[in-house]
């Protein structure tokens, strides 16, 4: 699937809809769909607000044991995150929010990986498996 650009609030909504459609088609339960879409909403907003815009890619994946899942990759070329450990702590915020975006998104998915380099942007990959 092509990358969905994240340049506006409308794009964040579009990413949510793409993830919802893929998660439903991928056999995720309603609760798991909702968790993945919520995590995607947090990460898309991060890419927009902190990364100055970015892109999302939604993919259907299959594990070696045949289990199906959805993987979503968020990339931005913003300033990056200087202290990853801090950024993943509940309540830590630079945006004036509750500081639950990144840490909350991590709790809502099965797999979470974050790579960031100061000055070179941030990439977050999340996956959720069907049960």
């Amino acid at each position, binding site marked *: 699937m092509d990358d969905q650009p994240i340049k506006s609030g409308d794009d*964040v909504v579009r990413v949510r809809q793409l993830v919802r459609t893929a998660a439903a088609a991928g056999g995720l339960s309603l*609760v798991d769909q909702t968790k993945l879409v919520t995590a995607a*909403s947090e990460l898309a907003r991060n890419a927009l607000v902190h990364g100055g815009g970015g892109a999302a890619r939604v993919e259907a994946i299959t594990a070696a044991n045949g289990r199906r899942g959805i993987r979503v990759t968020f990339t931005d070329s913003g300033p990056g995150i200087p202290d990853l450990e801090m950024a993943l702590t509940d309540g830590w915020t630079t945006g004036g929010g509750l500081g639950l975006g990144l840490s909350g998104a991590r709790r809502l998915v099965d797999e979470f990986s974050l790579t960031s380099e100061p000055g070179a942007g941030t990439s977050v990959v999340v996956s959720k498996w069907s049960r």
Partner: protein
Amino acid sequence: MERVPIIKIGQVLFVSIQIDLQDDSVLQLQEDLADELAVTKARGVIIDITAVEIVDSFIGRMLTMIGSMSRLFDAETVLVGMRPAVAITLTELGLTLPGVRTALNAEKGMRLLGGSV
């Protein structure tokens, strides 16, 4: 950006969110509600989220802020119709919506406000 309509029913402002919420729409709703509360002197606000598929940390924080703001206008806010999957996700996200009362549906929400409006 789509706008969420506010309907006045007696002493209550009724808001039914039927759109896929983007951040600007939620901010606009907060402003519109402040204006309506000041003009109408309503004593209660019901926010129906039956059609809302996700509440993330931003939307959750705005709902909490709407609750606090309404109180400054001497009005009580009740959030109604939360989907089970949304409730489970909010809890796992760590969002507890402090200060916002909830009811299962709009009818029960109206009854809850019955004592204060």
